[in-house]
């Protein structure tokens, strides 16, 4: 069991480095808001998640089913990246499990643009877990845009909770 976790962790470390490199190389830098490309503070390629994925933290991370974003962005920051990677590790180890990434936006701006933004966020998470070894046939992405908020207030606190990808499996 320990051996399996170790192998998975090694896999994650290697693949997340590959992810950053790959994503930067294939996307035009100027408008790409996807994972790793314009995310100041993700510490791209700096061994991101070593501490976050230690044995004690792993269960906590798996209990977190929501990944949060800043306004009009689909960049996954370091803290949220650790959550995605913990789920990716679980999914890589449990090949019968299928996952849905459900992208959401806050209420500001236009509904149709937010629908597209929700999809972009779900795809950002999808790309991360694929790089970490979860195959496409086990992943579905869907966007609800701003249509399904979890926090009903109209302030920054609520908006921050609503800009999210839900990891459902």
């Amino acid at each position, binding site marked *: 069991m320990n051996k399996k976790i170790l192998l998975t962790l090694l896999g994650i470390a290697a693949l997340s480095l590959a992810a950053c490199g790959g994503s930067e190389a294939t996307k035009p830098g100027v408008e790409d808001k996807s994972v790793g490309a314009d995310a100041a503070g993700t510490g791209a390629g700096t061994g991101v998640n070593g501490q976050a994925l230690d044995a004690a933290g792993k269960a906590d991370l798996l209990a977190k089913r929501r990944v949060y974003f800043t306004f009009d962005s689909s960049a996954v920051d370091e803290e949220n990246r650790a959550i995605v990677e913990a789920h990716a590790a679980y999914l890589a180890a449990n090949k019968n499990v299928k996952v849905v990434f459900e992208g959401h936006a806050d209420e500001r701006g236009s*509904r149709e643009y937010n629908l597209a933004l929700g999809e972009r966020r779900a795809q950002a998470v999808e790309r991360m877990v694929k790089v970490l070894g979860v195959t496409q046939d086990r992943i579905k992405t869907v966007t609800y845009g701003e249509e399904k908020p979890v926090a009903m207030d109209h302030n920054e606190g609520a908006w921050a909770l609503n800009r999210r990808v839900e990891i459902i499996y």
Partner: protein
Amino acid sequence: MKAVKYLMRIFLTAVLVGHASLASAILTIEITQGVDGGLPVAIVPFGGAGKERPPQDVAAVVEADLARSGRFTPLDKKYFVSRPTDDKQVVFKDWRIVKAEALVIGSVKPVAQGRWQVEFRLYDVYKEKQLAGYSYVVAGDRLRAVAHQISDIIYEKLTGEQGVFSTRIAYVIRESAGKRFSYKLQIADSDGYNPVTVLSSAEPLMSPAWAPDGTRLAYVSFEQRRPVLYMQNVVTGSRSRIAEFNGINSAPAWSPDGTKLALTLSRDGNPEIYMMRLSDKSLTRLTKHPAIDTEPTWSPDGKEIAFTSDRGGRPQIYRMRADGGNVQRVTFEGEYNARASYSADGKMLTLVSGAQGRYHAALLHLQSAVLQVLTDTPLDESPSFAPNGRMILYATDRGGRGVLASVSSDGRVRQLLKLQEGDVREPAWSPFNRSTINQGVSP
């Protein structure tokens, strides 16, 4: 087997089509900013005959219509010197005294079997001349419709432009249903009366768009737990899926001739604008860009499509030829510009413009590129023009609830359309063409 399962799923998501019920919730209109200097009009209470009173006060509906337009100032009846109800009783001097420029008189009289005869006349007080005069015989439940027709005639005679009082608005209402929400697509008269629910769903509804002939709505429904595009005939109640590809199927916009839809699909990986020929559902992809491209809108001549794209880093409005060529950015002011919609003359776009975290309904004058912010509320969405271009209807937030609001395109007159409860959003003003809304066909 698969088909059965599929049908079951549709059934279980509890979508009710054609179960159109007269909703009790009526939008009430509150004029939040009026204007001085409207044309002074005297509207005399309509006469009747016998003891039977009509179920609608036709003159009151006409007066409210004209006041709401912002272009007329109905005069206070307490200053009226006389109260004529037919042509022979009109003394023009009485109306010059109260400084009325136009005079409206009329009567509503019962005829056989619950039907009513409505007569009205419109006069130019200074030229002492009748400008219009019509007579209608209708059932009691059509009296409001007749009143709106009268308002349209008065508006057109006095301004030279077509009125929009007989048009309708479509919108989405979200209501609490226990811990969850329910969603309704409704159509109401332009003054919020006679709302009819044309679709109920347990999942969100978005982006209703009227066909130019006023008989069909295209919209997005999440009843399959993802955004799928539907079309519904509001006359027959019949409904069909028109785009259900992988990813996003949304942002429908009818071409002015009604033969094509511009729409957003992300089936190729990211949102792109496509054109669908409705006769055979064939698709032509119009944009090719890794950014988000969405919210297409046709110019009234059908030659151009404006759309939202974040290809420059943030969402801004671009336009292109209807075949996808010659893409040009049109908004440069403001951090965030989205959801554009053309005016009937093609000279302006109304859009959502955001800066410093506040999102307002705004007007872009295409020739001068001047962006005019029309509102001061921070969460405005989905603005669209009335078919005569004089008003802009949009969704906003009032006290934590979604409401509809309208603003005259010169920014001077503002109104709020409120519901007793629930959130209202996604308003779409119908074209001039008016059809009878279906109230009871099952799929």
